[in-house]
């Protein structure tokens, strides 16, 4: 079993008596890329700020790199942690190199680290330019370089692809994916976009309205996704009535789920029967049954909600 790099227990934070993080218990394992997913305002940044001790928690406990974190040992623990929270931080009057020198001085790292991280984020040719003259994407890269200084064991990245162009996003994604096996890092990355998290993370935590509504492997999330069998026949009404009276009646979902209800992909199956996904054997028997009734079976298709739809459904359920 892998070691827990981040472990929180019942983490809670309220602003003006309104809970923004409500009993969140995170578990981030060593050498993993943990995707922290949630809509805007769900509590992702507040949680990450609490992990870094930037926002005091109301209750609960935080353990980072095996140490229970408190105000006294916070700085010592964070020496092995790199972070990029919200917008990148920089001194506009200093060059990119000088900005990183500040981190090196404060963390007690050799300045040779600067060239190494600048090379990783492909900023080595821009290092002598003032940070104020950087584009947003370059500032973001500088922020990532800063977080990578000293090869920390844990990296906390809050929406790191903000402001990057598509090529930059792709590059950043590849970089993040390479960190665990190349440098032995554990990465916790937050985003409100499932598609982004899906491409880099193996484990996800979904937060909505301050509550952690799912935590586990992405494959586990996929398994939660119900599948349907869509059947289009020459007479759907007749087919439905016949199925209801047949041994296949259990496949018919409750009324609102039935024909024409699956609007997410309306054509060409908008006028079709929607059944709970049967086994292969049952599918064959059902097809035979419909054909024997004299119905033309035009199309049989297995369908499932996309992960995006499932995520939105989960988030919506919590919001209600």
């Amino acid at each position, binding site marked *: 079993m892998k070691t827990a790099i981040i472990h929180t227990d019942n983490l809670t934070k309220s602003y003006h008596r309104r809970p923004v993080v409500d009993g969140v218990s995170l578990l981030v394992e060593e050498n993993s890329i943990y995707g922290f997913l949630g809509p805007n305002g769900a509590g992702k940044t507040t949680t990450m700020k609490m992990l870094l001790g930037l926002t005091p928690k109301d209750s609960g406990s935080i353990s980072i790199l095996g140490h229970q974190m408190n105000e006294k040992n916070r700085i010592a623990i964070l020496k092995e942690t790199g*972070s990029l929270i919200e917008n990148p931080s920089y*001194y506009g*009057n200093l060059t990119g190199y000088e900005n990183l020198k500040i981190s090196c001085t404060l963390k007690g790292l050799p300045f040779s680290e600067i060239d190494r991280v600048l090379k990783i984020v492909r900023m080595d040719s821009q290092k002598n330019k003032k940070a104020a003259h950087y584009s947003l994407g370059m500032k973001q890269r500088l922020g990532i370089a800063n977080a990578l200084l000293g090869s920390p064991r844990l990296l906390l990245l809050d929406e790191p692809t903000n402001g990057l162009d598509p090529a930059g996003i792709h590059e950043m994604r590849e970089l993040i994916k390479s960190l665990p096996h190349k440098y032995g890092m554990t990465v916790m990355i937050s985003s409100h976009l499932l598609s982004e998290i899906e491409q880099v993370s193996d484990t996800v935590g979904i937060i909505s309205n301050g509550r952690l509504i799912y935590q586990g492997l992405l494959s586990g999330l996929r398994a939660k996704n119900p599948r349907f069998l869509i059947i289009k026949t020459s007479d759907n009404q007749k087919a439905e009535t016949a199925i209801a009276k047949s041994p296949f009646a259990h496949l018919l979902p409750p009324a609102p789920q039935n024909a024409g209800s699956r609007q997410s992909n309306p054509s060409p199956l908008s006028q079709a029967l929607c059944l709970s996904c049967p086994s292969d054997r049952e599918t064959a028997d059902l097809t035979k049954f419909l054909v024997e009734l004299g119905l033309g079976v035009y199309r049989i298709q297995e369908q499932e909600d996309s992960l995006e739809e499932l995520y939105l459904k989960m988030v919506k359920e919590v919001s209600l």
Partner: protein
Amino acid sequence: MKFLLVELKKQKGQFSGLLFLLVFSFTVLWLLWCLDDLDFACFNDITGLLITNLLLMNTILVPLVLAVFASRLADVERLGNTYKWLCTMESSGCIYRCKAIVGAVYLIIFALAQAVLFALAGSYFVPGFSIHYIQYFVTLLAVYEAIFLFQLNLSFASSSQLLPLFVSVGATFTGIFSWFLNQYPLRYLIPWGYFAALCNVGMYYQEDIRYSTYTWSPYPVLWLVILLVFIGIEYLWGSRFFRKHILDF
């Protein structure tokens, strides 16, 4: 020490030193202009005249400079959104302490340069060392520190740096009034008035013979102590406020 070094590094390109140098150069020129067409037969004590003039120049010039300086120290962090970065490497109390110390370093150098200017000008006319040179340095340093910490705290607390600048302009005028409103305790109530409150020279002008008599009184240690207590309170309050609200800035 490394925290202080970092704080000094952040000053690069801020031209804070140049700001103080410009004010000092202006003070030198102003003093030379004052002395240029001076009739030495019209007063009894050149040292008294020098110190009152220099303190008045400070009352006029320094509040705005300190406001700009303090504002730059605070704003460099706000502009770069750097507190959430720094606070993962050093404590918030340490950030405030370093800013106050770096500010104090600049103020010591500035006050020392002014004291040397006073000593050079004074000893040119009255050879030898005078305790007034040291008193002048102490006065400047204490008042600078009180104004600087006030402006630093105000800069941290304000989202717009225009407010501290407007306050300093108003404070400059109040400081000037405090010199001429002897009958009111204004000079003892505001830090900008302490240039006048800690001035231990009195002047009596006889209009009929056009003669100014400068008289020295003992240094007002009690008011200096009160100012030092005020500085202590400013520091403690500022540090506490900063620690509490640093990430709201």
